């Protein structure tokens, strides 16, 4: 059952990801991106990382895609339906990406991963454990994350604000 679910979910994820980078209309691209994010959330659930799955939906679907769609709407020049999608080197890039994928796959299938497949912690405890680790060993990154967010917000506000004229 898990393998079947995995195949279905990853097929959805990869197909919609491919559509993200190839669709001509940027708005539709963004919609495919949202579907990709949902697919990735599904993969996280198969991996017993429920909190990450929900965070994925909350942040990527709820927040980042909204930002992206707003940016698409705010730069309406992109709506030209006849504009070229790719730059001149796209063939080269496609070849490079394909080769890179083959290379990665070849490496990863050869490595004898020492998988333990220990049972995942009970879901409820997993989140408590996560909370504990966030504030105990990762206390500094935890605070730095907050600083990063605020700095990003301030920077983005300065950049995006309309000049008073």
């Amino acid at each position, binding site marked *: 059952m*898990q*393998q*079947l679910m*995995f195949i279905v979910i*990853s097929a959805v*994820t*990869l197909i919609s990801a*491919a559509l*993200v*980078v190839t669709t001509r209309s*940027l708005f539709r691209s963004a919609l495919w*991106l949202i579907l*990709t*994010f949902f697919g*990735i959330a599904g*993969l996280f659930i198969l991996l017993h*990382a429920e909190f*990450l799955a929900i*965070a994925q939906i909350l942040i*990527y679907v709820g927040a*980042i895609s909204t930002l*992206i769609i707003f*940016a698409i709407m*705010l*730069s309406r*020049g*992109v709506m030209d339906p006849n*504009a*070229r*999608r*790719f730059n001149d*080197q*796209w063939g080269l*890039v*496609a070849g490079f*990406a*394909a080769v*890179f*994928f083959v290379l*990665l*796959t070849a490496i*990863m299938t050869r490595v004898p*991963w020492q*998988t333990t*497949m*220990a*049972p995942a912690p009970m879901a409820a405890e*997993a989140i408590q454990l*996560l909370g504990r*680790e*966030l504030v105990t060993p*990762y206390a500094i*990154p935890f605070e730095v*994350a907050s600083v*990063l*967010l605020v700095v*990003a917000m301030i920077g*983005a506000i300065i*950049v995006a604000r*309309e000049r008073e004229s």
Partner: protein
Amino acid sequence: MSLFTNPVPLTWFLIVSAALFCIGAFGALARRNAVGVLMGVELMLNAVNINLIAFWRYVGVAQMTGQVFAIFVITVAAAEAAVGLALIISIYRQRNTVIVEEIDTMKG
């Protein structure tokens, strides 16, 4: 029937993640539109997250390190998207274009 009973091997997740990463890389390098480039980058970051979580599940499930790192990756992705898109909007306002090739000069 093995599709119904066997657990998913780690390699499968890694392959999907690699595929996603390459698709994202293609988008980031080949798209002309700056927002499209950014979407490609987001895909790449997501591929990284799949790897982090897969290794957490299969190798280090006793600690939450993989999940913690994935959360930080999400945080950084959000910050990157916020600033990147703000830059795109600002550039659009000044140059009236979001095509990457047309905004490659640093001089105003």
